[in-house]
């Protein structure tokens, strides 16, 4: 018997399907042919490696990184958590890229033609690397909800986009972090594209008063679980 390191499969019990008709943009962008199964031996188990040079000073403080000298408007928040593989191992030096709307629900992007105001002191983008324990922490403001055109009176719940590089290329993940108690969550087709309750719960950050900084910022905890090694015992011929 020997242990063969392989990557665990994508868990389709928790990941959304490509086609989720309530989210209209999926209807012409979802592949319709079945995915071609790749032999795990052929899976690419390497991936880009990021170090401290990927993240500059101030990248993890979105309230200040517009570089104007002014602070972003909004309820200041701290977001912290761990990046783990699904076998429980922490992922060190994982690059997390962050983007979000401002406190009024507007993105600083030329395609966002919403009527909410821009904040000159807020870009809405940031970066952070996990430490050797897989822990990360960034500072931002609570993003506003905003209307979108998916259906009548459609509003996205407050959310922060997170992009994460794990230890291999297939462990790549892009997700969205939501906030507890948001009344828009049951109405949002993107959040509800996640097919199981347990998966949806994992996308909602937990308010943690121990993370809250007195006089400064409300604290939220959001752990992220990537595909990891699947050590399957294999019979080897002698």
């Amino acid at each position, binding site marked *: 018997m020997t242990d063969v390191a392989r990557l665990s499969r994508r868990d389709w019990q928790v990941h959304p399907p490509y086609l989720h008709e309530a989210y209209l943009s999926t209807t012409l962008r979802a592949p319709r042919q079945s995915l071609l199964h790749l032999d795990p031996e052929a899976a690419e188990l390497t991936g880009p490696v990021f170090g401290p040079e990927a993240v500059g000073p101030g990248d993890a403080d979105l309230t200040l990184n517009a570089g104007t000298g002014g602070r972003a408007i909004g309820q200041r928040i701290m977001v912290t958590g761990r990046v783990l593989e699904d076998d429980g191992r922490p992922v060190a030096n994982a690059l997390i890229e962050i983007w979000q709307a401002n406190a009024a629900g507007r993105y600083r992007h030329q*395609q966002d033609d919403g009527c909410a105001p821009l904040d000159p002191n807020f870009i809405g983008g940031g970066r952070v690397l996990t430490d050797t324990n897989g822990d990360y922490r960034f500072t931002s403001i609570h993003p506003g909800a905003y209307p979108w055109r998916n259906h009548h009176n459609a509003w996205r719940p407050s959310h922060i986009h997170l992009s994460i590089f794990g230890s291999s290329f297939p462990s*790549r993940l892009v997700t969205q972090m939501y906030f507890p108690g948001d009344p828009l969550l049951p109405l949002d087709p993107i959040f509800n594209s996640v097919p199981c309750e347990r998966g949806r719960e994992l996308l909602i950050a937990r308010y943690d008063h121990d993370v809250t900084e007195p006089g400064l910022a409300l604290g939220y905890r959001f752990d992220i679980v990537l595909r990891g090694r699947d050590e399957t015992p294999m019979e080897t011929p002698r």
Partner: protein
Amino acid sequence: MKPLVQTPSQTVGPFFSIGLCREHQNVLAARDAAGERVRIEGIVFDGARAPVPDAMLEVWHPSIGFGRAATNPHGEFRFETARPPYFNVIVFARGMLVHAFTRVYFSDEARNADDAVLQSVDPARRATLIGEREDLDGRPVYQWNIRLQGDGETVFFDL
């Protein structure tokens, strides 16, 4: 140990460039990499044959490195790189709740005939993974379009 539940994927949405396109990353360095310098370019199409202006591709090969390119308003993308045998590719877009894994191979690459992954693809769909070489002003350019859905749908992998 009991496995943890994977965090579900969500779409990058339309405004990903704020977080993901801070630098231009579509020129892959790899000064020491073997292989000629080439361009890979194409258009991402949806199921109605319309270009997708808010998609992003990431490419990776261990000998070359990592690259990333967003599509422009015409759905076009471009990479400048040394040429590996193939690139692993991830496709992200507004309207894609989960990213899609594919590969791009090169039409004049002799090793294609021995590549187990490429040879495992239905011959009728194999061309969707192959960039076709053209020489423009003496420079090799591989034309590779991605069709997310419908006729000529690109082969995506359950990887």
